[in-house]
């Protein structure tokens, strides 16, 4: 049942201790959001799961297998889009699949369309706006086949409506193939709207401060965003975050 298990990991950059005995668990097909102050180590956490760095201590396991320092286990949307400048939008989107040897051209084109980028298939990254780049990076990770998706503020550069569209799309994709998702965001509404569980991180040195299980039923309707209960939950989490800072 447990997809990802993180046990007491610590990580320092030189003198700067970022993570301190952080532990958390993500279940199969679970959607978990992570909230935390800027600079608290959310991106670092993803980079540890992704195997770019090894934790100084502690263990990370995926499907029961230890993956400390092992790359390639996650579909990843980095915080900055990281598109290859010499590849077109389509080429960049296919990259994630190419790496594991599966590319689905037709699906990619369909997704470009869905993300509102029709007509930009052959554009190079320098021809795109900030939000468009972000969407390309997002599609790229959706098309990567790994069973855990880690999204690092994937919608931060989008206007409210495009954002809502993308969120709904993400939900529908998730409901279809039921991969586990971890989402870093600064938007409490987004976390509440999308996830099963919200994990709040402390200031540096960072550990898990609090967890909330989101009670809204699935499938979620955009209408809950305006409900009383939603607002109450928002305040609750807002206050929790206020305590940290």
């Amino acid at each position, binding site marked *: 049942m447990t997809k990802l298990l993180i046990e007491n990991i610590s990580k320092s950059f030189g003198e700067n201790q970022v993570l301190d005995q952080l532990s958390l668990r993500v279940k199969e097909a679970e959607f978990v959001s992570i909230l935390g102050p800027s600079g608290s180590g959310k991106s670092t956490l993803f980079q540890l799961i992704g195997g770019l760095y090894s934790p100084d201590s502690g263990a990370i396991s995926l499907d029961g297998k230890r993956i400390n320092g092992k*790359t390639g286990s996650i579909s990843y949307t*980095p915080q900055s889009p*990281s598109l290859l400048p*010499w590849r077109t939008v389509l080429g960049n989107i296919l990259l994630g699949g190419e790496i594991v040897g599966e590319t689905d051209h037709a699906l990619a084109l369909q997704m470009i369309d869905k993300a509102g980028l029709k007509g930009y298939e052959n554009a190079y990254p320098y021809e795109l706006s900030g939000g468009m780049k972000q969407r390309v990076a997002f599609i790229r990770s959706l098309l990567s086949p790994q069973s855990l998706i880690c999204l690092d503020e994937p919608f931060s550069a989008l206007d409210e409506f495009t954002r809502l569209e993308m969120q709904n799309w993400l939900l529908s994709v998730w409901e279809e193939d039921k991969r586990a998702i971890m989402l870093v965001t600064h938007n409490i509404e987004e976390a509440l709207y999308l996830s099963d569980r919200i994990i709040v991180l402390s200031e540096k040195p960072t550990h898990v401060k609090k967890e909330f299980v989101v009670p809204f039923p699935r499938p979620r309707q955009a209408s809950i965003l305006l409900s009383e209960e939603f607002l109450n939950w928002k305040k609750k989490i807002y206050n929790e975050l206020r305590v940290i800072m």
Partner: protein
Amino acid sequence: MNIWHKGWRPVLVLILLFVVWEVSCRLFEIPRWLLPSPSQIVLEGAEGWSNYYHHLTATIGLTILGFLIGASVGIAVAVGLHLLPRLREAVYPIIILSQNVPIIVLAPLLVIWFGFGILPKIIVITLVCFFPITVATLDGFKQTSSELSHYMKMAGASKGQIFWKLEWPYALPSIFSGLKISATYSVMGAVISEWLGAKEGIGVYMTLASSSFRTDRVFVAIFLIMILSLVFFTLIVSLERMIVKWKPKGDGKGRD
């Protein structure tokens, strides 16, 4: 079109240069055996075509073959050293040393080992050509954006994939930088290699001309060498334009 369009500037400068040269030759009455005037050189070049065209074709063939081999070796060495960092540490100094064996010392050894055929000549051209490519390419690989390489690693790209999908395209401008330097050297490399004993070639034509005080012919040879290198350089630049075309246009415009 673009090249023709821009081409007038250097042509103008060259013509100016020739005019200055021609005028000073006449003004100071510089004797022909010391420094022939451009008109004398062009005349000899036109008249002597049948004397040297077989030399020319021989050198062109040698240059192309040598440059192709040299460039391949240069890139291959850079790739090898890049992918095997320990090998790089061990071998880099030796590569530098290879650039410092004077030809007058190398020549007898090459001849002893490989005779007077084409092989020692190709080795000389390769030695001349591979080094700038190797250094520039290695430095190009080193410059790869860490943001992109972080993404590639986390996406599970193997060392080979990171290399082909990220580092190689990222290093292309540097590789072309090296290729341009080498292309420029390749013709001189071929001429030098002909001093290792060749029956024909611009190098042979030039030494003969020089030893019989036909300075005008020596300059014909130099002009041929220069034209050849310019052609080679232009070919590499065109190739670069064809391959590296993803740069923001607002930035690269009018910049080459």
